[in-house]
């Protein structure tokens, strides 16, 4: 799910950036530093939308750098266990398939794909029901439920399932 939240960060600024454009420099550096990063607690920072407050700067001993506490609003993407969302299939193999929902990767193991769907190898590997009516392949859109998340320093990985009511393919690129 996407959220709009307020975060705080201490920004260190080199004295050469002081002057009339201090604020612009600070904001530009903040965007460069923060946008596109990911933390386990807040998820992926997609875009900064506004600056709430820039606090009083504090000169660091010895270096001349100044630290400013900056409060900013941003759009973040944070997946949660138990959340249901839509995703695009990016890769299919006999172990299951990978899907992407915005910046996050979700793996759905073949144990969590309905039992009536069989893996078919070939140019375009896919999972298909025995009557051929439903097919999951690259670029399919699926609705899935996140059942687990793994967080490391710079990325979040999710495990999902489509073995539940109202989950599964919502749009097949072959028939669309």
């Amino acid at each position, binding site marked *: *799910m*996407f*959220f*709009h*939240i307020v975060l705080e960060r201490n920004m260190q600024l080199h004295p050469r950036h002081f002057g009339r454009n201090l604020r612009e420099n600070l904001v530009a550096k903040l965007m460069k530093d923060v*946008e*596109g*990063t*990911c933390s386990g*607690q807040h998820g*992926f*920072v*997609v*875009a900064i*939308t506004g600056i709430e407050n820039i606090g009083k700067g504090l000169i660091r001993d010895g270096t001349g750098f100044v630290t400013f506490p900056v409060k900013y609003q941003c*759009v973040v*993407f*944070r997946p*949660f*266990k*138990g*959340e*249901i*969302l*839509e995703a*695009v299939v990016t890769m299919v193999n006999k172990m299951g398939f990978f899907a*992407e*929902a*915005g*910046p996050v990767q979700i793996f759905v193991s073949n144990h969590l794909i309905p039992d009536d769907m069989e893996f078919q190898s070939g140019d375009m590997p896919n999972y298909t029901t025995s009557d051929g009516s439903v097919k999951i392949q690259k670029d399919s*859109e699926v*609705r899935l439920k*996140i059942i687990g*998340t793994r*967080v490391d320093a710079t990325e979040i990985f999710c495990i999902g399932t489509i073995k*539940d*009511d*109202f989950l599964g393919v919502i749009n097949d690129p072959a028939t669309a």
Partner: protein
Amino acid sequence: MSGEEEENAAELKIGDEFLKAKCLMNCEVALILEHKYDQLQQMSDDPRNQVSQVFEKSLQYVKRFSRYKNPDAVKQVREILSRYQLTEFELCVLGNLCPETVEEAIAMVPSIKAKGRVHDDDAIDKMLNDLALIKKFE
């Protein structure tokens, strides 16, 4: 947050910070990101160099999965859903997935039927009808 183990969106256990935060539906994110992308485009010829991969992927994703394209419709969806005593998170899941039946809605957002909530099936049905109407007249 009280620990990774207890996190469960189906029971609205998403941590205090996110429960109180403003959630965004995909269509709202699309409006925000497109606006920002346009701004960047005015400043430089090739905004693709300016934005992070996370931004790029998010923009593609929300464009693909936005149920409502028209900014007025997006506003209306939030307005209508907010009449039903939903939390921000529930509101956005419903707005994103647009379930068609009461059964589907409850499967997508189990917490709306949790004990202590006021929703009966009729109220949910009315809510889904209101949503479908916006889509129809968009």
